[in-house]
């Protein structure tokens, strides 16, 4: 997935001379997760900029660059560090087109690694995507695999609206089913690990039906796609698994069509439960599917606590938690 993201930026920087990359450690060093590796060597210091440690300034400057005809891709080193930039994202980037009636806009993409499972403690494990979905005027995306990562990042860079692009870092190097004791699996053995060398896009605003099924619909994204898959397989369920991929805009019609078909729904994300994106999904699904639902919708999420360093796997919504929710929806009459 790291190479896929790198390839997306590489291709866009070659195709479009206005694309620039900026962020902490992204230049000479190539990023703490190596996602921008080699870009500065190839495109120079004026197109791949190492920045001071000031997230608000990174986004603020990116907005100015966007207004002046560039197409900046800003990296926020961890999603946990994005909060100092939130005024620039929420009040400025998201609303510039609106407040100027379309005269000014800034096509900024903000990439940021998110999620847990890497022993990162409470400042390197958060999943703050729901906060961004509550702000009008920004698109919010989270791929779960290399193929989507590259196609969605190219689409995000080409998009004239701002995009906050979350990268679930636990799956940077391979899919993860929630069991930390199993040997790590690399992307090379996964069908979605196969990434074309050239240009392609994955449209923002379309879910991916990872697996078609008839027993229950599981709506999820990011790392949880693989946890949910493993949990459903463990129970022998014919689950329809939907990878949301894009929270804003949300492909709600495909999701509700699936739930209307199966009559049962589990929503799963790593982020905390209360006011998480699952709440929006759950509300929207019941509005459209209430008369077809055989059981109350279940949500699986992180506990409503900060992400604790010492209790990674008690916190992480693993297979057991997903399986319990699946059993509940399957048993309800």
């Amino acid at each position, binding site marked *: 997935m790291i190479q896929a993201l790198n390839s997306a930026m590489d291709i866009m920087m070659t195709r479009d001379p206005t694309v620039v990359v900026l962020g902490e450690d992204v230049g000479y060093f190539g990023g703490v997760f190596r996602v921008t590796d080699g870009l500065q060597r190839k495109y120079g210091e004026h197109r791949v900029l190492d920045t*001071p440690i000031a997230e608000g300034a990174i986004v*603020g400057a990116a907005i*100015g*660059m966007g207004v002046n005809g560039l197409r900046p891709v800003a990296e926020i080193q961890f999603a946990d560090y994005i909060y100092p930039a939130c005024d*620039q994202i929420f009040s400025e980037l998201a609303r510039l087109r609106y407040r100027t*009636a379309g*005269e000014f806009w800034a096509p900024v993409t903000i990439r940021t690694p998110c999620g847990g499972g890497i022993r990162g403690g409470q400042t390197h494990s958060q999943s703050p995507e729901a906060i961004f979905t509550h702000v009008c005027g920004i698109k919010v995306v989270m791929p779960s695999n290399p193929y989507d990562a590259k196609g969605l990042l190219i689409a995000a860079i080409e998009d004239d609206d701002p995009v906050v692009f979350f990268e679930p870092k636990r799956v940077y190097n391979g899919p993860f089913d929630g069991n930390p004791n199993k040997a790590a699996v690399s992307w090379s053995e996964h069908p979605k690990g196969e990434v074309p060398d050239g240009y392609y896009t994955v449209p923002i605003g379309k879910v991916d039906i990872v697996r078609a099924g008839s027993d229950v619909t599981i709506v999820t994204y990011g790392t949880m796609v693989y946890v949910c898959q493993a949990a459903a397989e463990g129970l022998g369920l014919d689950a329809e698994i939907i990878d949301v991929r894009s929270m804003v*805009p949300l492909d709600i019609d495909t999701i509700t069509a699936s739930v209307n078909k199966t009559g049962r729904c589990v929503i799963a994300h790593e982020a905390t439960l209360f006011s998480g994106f699952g709440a929006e999904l759950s509300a929207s699904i019941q509005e459209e599917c209430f008369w077809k639902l055989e059981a109350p919708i279940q949500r699986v999420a992180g506990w409503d606590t900060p992400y604790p360093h010492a209790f990674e796997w008690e916190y992480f919504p693993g297979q057991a938690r997903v399986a319990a929710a699946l059993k509940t929806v399957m048993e309800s009459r």
Partner: protein
Amino acid sequence: MPRRSRLHTPKPHSRPGEKPDFSYLETSPAGAVPRPDVNARVRDIGNLATELVRVLDDEHRAVGPWHPHLDASDLQIGLKHMLLTRVFDDRMQRTQRQGKITFYMRSLGEEAVSVAQAMALRPGDMLFPSYRNQGLYMVRGRPLVDLMCQLLSNTRDMCKGRQLPVMYHWTAGRIFSISGNLATQFPQAVGWAMAAAIKGEDDIAVSWLGEGSSAEADFHHAMLFAAVYQAPVILNVVNNQWAISTFQGFAGGEQRSFAARGPGYGMAGIRVDGNDFLAVYAVTQWAAERARRGAGPTLIEHVTYRGAAHSTSDDPARYRPKDDYEKWPLGDPVERLKKHLIALGEWSEERHVALTAELDAQVAAAWKEAVTHGTLGEGPKLDPDSMFEDVFKEMPARLVRQREQMRAERT
């Protein structure tokens, strides 16, 4: 030496009922501050950040090395733009008091900052203003009717009714949108300037904020990025002494000048008499040339005074002496330029009165036209459907549905 720690609470020198006292203000005589080469190293020009660049002396003559030697016709144009700003402000203030617009902010006493700076810059330079820079629009020639339609949120409002009055923008005139969230424009201006340098263009970016807003992180972000990348940008702190009711000491002005933050970050800092049209013009010209030749950014502190209320929503008599502005030691920018022109034999009281009347008529005529496009109470109205536009470039299905719902509510 105090024997224990203490909490210092900055206090303004005078409050309502007290005599105005500006003894805290450090000034330099007109003509006294040397003008360094535009390529001077930051470490060699630290004095500019603590002294006060002034050109107009007490006898209304232009003196010293910063004298920009402008033609009398340019000075007359500058005077006209400042006067237009003031006449426009006065009328819009009255209009607000009559309930015809909801809100307004005057720039009384600060007109030289925007007008002299806009005149010293090139048309291609990109301006990132605060909410008290209406003079920029006067110099760059936005029709007054357009500004008024914005104030009225009417059918010809450039913001389509989405912004508070005075939060203008102008793509063709290269003036960025005013946010309302303070200081956010500062790092954006630096980013714009960085992009200009990346693209190899020689346009520069210029931004403004008040000394109160210099407390925001965005100010410091901008300073750091501007200094680190030596961005072609001019960052202006308009020190008008007051952030609503809070005097400049609370923004850190008690211990050190705002301009001194420039050298602190490794960039040129200049403190200028913000009510001296010629001095503001000259330092802006210097800073612009410096930026354009790649010699780096400049922080300019304009020492001025907010002559009016912060906005139409506050009463300054509740937090400062009533006659504070009259006693301000740096005077009034319009009066000072007027007297300079008279001293040059290029202006007269009669011409001034006539010009004021002419501008007043121009503003009145513009208002008459603006209200034909709608007011708060009557006339044509913006279509509420438009509120769903421009959230995204293409309207998403969710907003299309909500627009339908709103239409149904309205019938």
